[in-house]
């Protein structure tokens, strides 16, 4: 089953994901990612889009899949991978709508996304999730296997097929347009201590 709800309310997902699967993931949900995902960051995305523009076949089929924005450290002998936490997602904003066009259903990174990506997630029924930024050592423990499948010359920016087990992430932008960061921060803002330009409307 691609989406499984655990007793504690967390959800476990496994690609490939359908529109119905994605529809079950709501902003703020804690999700454990298992199964296959594809590691790709800045330089790999640039190349993927160039390949698309040239009408070439991509090194993996994004349909229903999850992409993880990560550039790991080199693995030590006997280890599957080095540290492998997420990188800032907004740098991929330029490339994301084209990837969603191809059927990509899940993205994992860290940080906020721009309005174009948030709209594209809605339009294509896809979801953006954040992993623990700066938690690279912990993330490494959840990765069971990895192999470079394209652009090996890019080193840490090569495309990797990874198998993970229960990598914890938060749903930031769901397919209905909700943004968890803005929702999460507002109740904690102390308007009385801040100049006017930083005050947020009081919570309903």
């Amino acid at each position, binding site marked *: 089953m691609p989406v499984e709800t655990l007793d504690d309310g967390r959800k476990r997902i496994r690609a490939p994901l359908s529109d119905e699967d994605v529809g079950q993931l709501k902003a703020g949900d804690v999700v454990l990612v298992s199964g296959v995902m594809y590691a790709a960051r800045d330089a790999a995305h640039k190349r993927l889009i160039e390949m698309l523009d040239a009408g070439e076949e991509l090194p993996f089929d994004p349909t229903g899949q999850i992409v993880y924005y990560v550039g790991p*450290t080199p693995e030590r002998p006997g280890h599957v991978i080095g540290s492998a936490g997420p990188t800032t997602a907004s740098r991929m904003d330029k490339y994301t709508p084209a990837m969603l066009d191809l059927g990509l259903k899940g993205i994992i990174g860290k940080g*906020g996304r721009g309005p174009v990506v948030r709209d594209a997630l809605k339009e294509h029924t896809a979801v953006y999730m*954040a992993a623990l*930024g700066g938690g690279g050592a912990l993330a490494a423990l959840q990765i069971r296997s990895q192999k470079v499948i394209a652009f090996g010359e890019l080193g*840490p920016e090569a495309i990797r097929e990874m198998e993970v087990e229960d990598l914890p992430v938060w749903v930031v932008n769901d397919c209905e347009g909700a943004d968890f960061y803005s929702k999460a921060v507002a109740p904690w803002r102390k308007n009385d201590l801040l100049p006017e330009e930083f005050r947020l409307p009081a919570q309903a």
Partner: protein
Amino acid sequence: MGEVREVDAAEITRAVRDLCIEINYTIPEDMVAAVKRAREKEESPVGRQILDLLIRNQDLAAQGEYPYCQDTGSTVVFIDVGQDVHITGADLEDAINEGVGQGYTEGYLRGSIVGDPVFERKNTGNNTPAFIHTRVVPGDQITLKVDAKGGGSENKGRHAMLKPSDGLEGVKSFVLRTVAEAGPDACPPGIIGVGVGGNFEYCAMLAKRALVRKVGQPNPDPRIAELEADLFEKCNALGIGPQSLGGTQTVLAVHVETMATHIASLPVAVNIECHAHRTGTKVI
């Protein structure tokens, strides 16, 4: 003037190599303590969970198998060379870069530097070149301070040439806006390095140097210390919290450094360091 002391460049290489490896696995004690303090003060349950995870990440990295973060940083090297030192055997910058290359290769650290910014963007493979800041100081010692600076938080830094009439309130507003706009992208909670004054380039350098001060140590000038305390309170009042999931602990410290400036100018620079604060010092 003392006697000239000869220092073999190989000693510098070794010190840089060792520092690169040490700091990427072992977060310094002052930062560990700052994260623990934040854990005690954080009011948001989710924020506390995040800080617990960061403490676990520190502990795991300190075992020496996995670097604290996969972004093992650009290598920023502050080197103060005593004017009575004569370096032999190699050029100073070559010796430093040799140490960076050895450290990143032997320490299984990620090469995160591309050789040019807009053409090939080809990874140099061993994280060289370092960003080196050299000062000549009195004495016959060499002090090396290395900071492995994460790119995500670095990207959220800002620099502005304010008007003198913007004054202290203008400076505060600029710092707060930078922290607010960085939001989740800079992996909060972190350290906010602020430079005020100087000229265009000195101001940025003040902000960078502010990051490597002992975490939370106030500026010795009481007026600046007061500014730091005020900015600390206001940054945390933004409610961004750990990982921007909401909370009371958005920054672990605000460090401000100031300098004389031109009668027409009020430069301000903000450099953000995430919780992956990897810095260390060696004296030769």
